[in-house]
């Protein structure tokens, strides 16, 4: 039951991240504009796009979903900083950002023990 419920919190951010990653990697005009404002065009856009895609893939794997959530949390913290300091907030981005942030937090809280430095020690 718990696992099935968690799948919602894995699927939703994974879908959003796939979308944003695709936008960044395919040089969608709005993303290009955003990263020009941040002064990271195009290198930063590609790096973040790849990281988002990876996080989405990991979120979909039963074994590495915690790692995916950790990566997603990292990108979202970066996005939060960007919105706070440079871009400002609009309703659409706020919704996407907060849903990915919250669901990855839920997955992390449920599964942090799967992560290497946070899980139980398997050796003596």
């Amino acid at each position, binding site marked *: 039951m718990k696992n099935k419920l968690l799948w919602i919190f894995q699927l939703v951010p994974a879908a959003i991240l796939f979308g944003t990653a695709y936008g960044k990697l395919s040089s969608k005009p709005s993303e290009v504009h955003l990263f020009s404002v*941040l*002064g*990271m065009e195009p290198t*930063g856009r590609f790096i973040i796009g790849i990281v988002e895609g990876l996080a989405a893939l990991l979120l979909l794997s039963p074994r590495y979903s915690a790692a995916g959530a*950790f990566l997603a*949390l*990292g990108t979202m*913290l*970066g996005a939060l*900083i*960007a919105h706070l*300091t*440079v871009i400002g907030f609009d309703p659409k981005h706020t919704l996407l950002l907060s849903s990915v942030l919250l669901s990855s937090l839920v997955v992390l809280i449920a599964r*942090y023990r799967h992560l290497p*430095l*946070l899980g*139980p*020690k398997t*050796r*003596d």
Partner: protein
Amino acid sequence: MAASWTVNLEKISRVVNFGLPALTVAFFLAGYFSSFYFHFLTVFFLLMTLINIFYRRVQKDHALLTNFGWVAQGRYLLESIGPELRQYLFTTDTEERPFSRVERMEVYRKSKDIDASSAFGSQLEFDGSEYKLRHSMYPTLVAEAEPYALTFGEERGLPSAYTVTKPVMISAMSYGSLGKNAVRALARGARKAGIPMNTGEGGLPKYHLMEGCDLIFQMGTAKFGCRNEDGSLHEGRLREIARLPQVKMIEIKFSQGAKPGKGGLLPREKITREIAELRGVPMDRDVISPPAHVECTDPDATVRFIGRVQDISELPVGIKFCLGREAEFRVLVRAMARHQIFPDYIALDGAEGGTGAAPKSFMDDLGIPILTALPAVHQILKEEEVRDRLKLVAAGKLVNPGKQLIALSLGAQAVYTARGFMLALGCIQALTCNRNTCPVGITTHNPALQRGLDIEVKSERVKNYVVNLVHDHYELLTSLGKRSFRELNEDNLLLPTAAGTGRGRL
């Protein structure tokens, strides 16, 4: 002045605990005022800080993490590679366990067929704490030595009596404890070397059968391959297995040195679909064999069971156990005499014997070591005047020719070794046989790890190991002034004395 240079981990941890949030702020400012790229580091240190807060304020499992945070993780990381570091760098050539580098190197060199001579002097002890062989002033010549031969089942006049021509045999290792490449490499090597291989208690020995070597089928307490639902013997299946032309003998396993008093254990990690099918067991839990055969409730029942297996199989039938109490064994021998049913051989396993998996206390604290058990069993058989009714095979860390000759001098007529052959296959003593992660692909079913175990190359190593062992056996035999392995006895030995540790180290 020296004190100011000592490493104070507590202070370092305080610096780190303060430094992580400070760096987060610093990089945030850099990101804000300089380039947004700095925010990669802001996020990194922010996450590090959050984890540190988790260590110090949330988790309760580790006092070190609560008190020191990230710095304590360094201890766990270093500790986790301790076994490797010790083996690579810090352990001396004689102190590694269970096999020291000196012992392992001898097997490696024999199996690779390279110069096995040593220089300058022995690494072992000469303080009376170890068994030594007594040579003769009048050595004989290898060319004049009588070739070794031992016929199992000759006492009963069996048409299927089985003769071995080398005093060393491959001891029980099942498919399950070993991966298929390892089993096939051993089996192919056994065929090349002309020695038999024990199948271990793993059900129908599918992979053992592939290479055409002689086999000793082991029937453990769970009777994999020939069991009824209730764990009793399925006579028809045993008969089918005994009719396989490669199966030369049957061995009933009562106990093993590594975990006497307990049945076999195959950890869940190592159970593949195929193994579950071969053994008829579920995949989702450890497979633990019962501690005893359901048929064998007392000495008489045990002897009758041995007789039954002999009748069904029409092959030489041995029993394998680790000695616990001499008196108990004597009662069993008397029951054998009363019923006039003797196993064709006894495989005596020492408490130092190896295993893929066993509870630690059973491995460490239970059973009699082989060099103590062997003379005791030999003596009891002589006292009961039945020594000539069966053969005695010794096992338990007997991987080197000298140790094997010591066992042959203490009453054994042949020796079994399993780990000797694993070392010949390239075992590096990583001690992970129970985790399915064997780095050299021997005790794992992970195809990626088994890839490194080339069956043809390793089977050649197995053959070389046998050839060089037997070479040394004859060399040692003749240096003792003997012409036949049958002449070996305790008088060849210098026994450990109280002056040493008295443990008779191997």
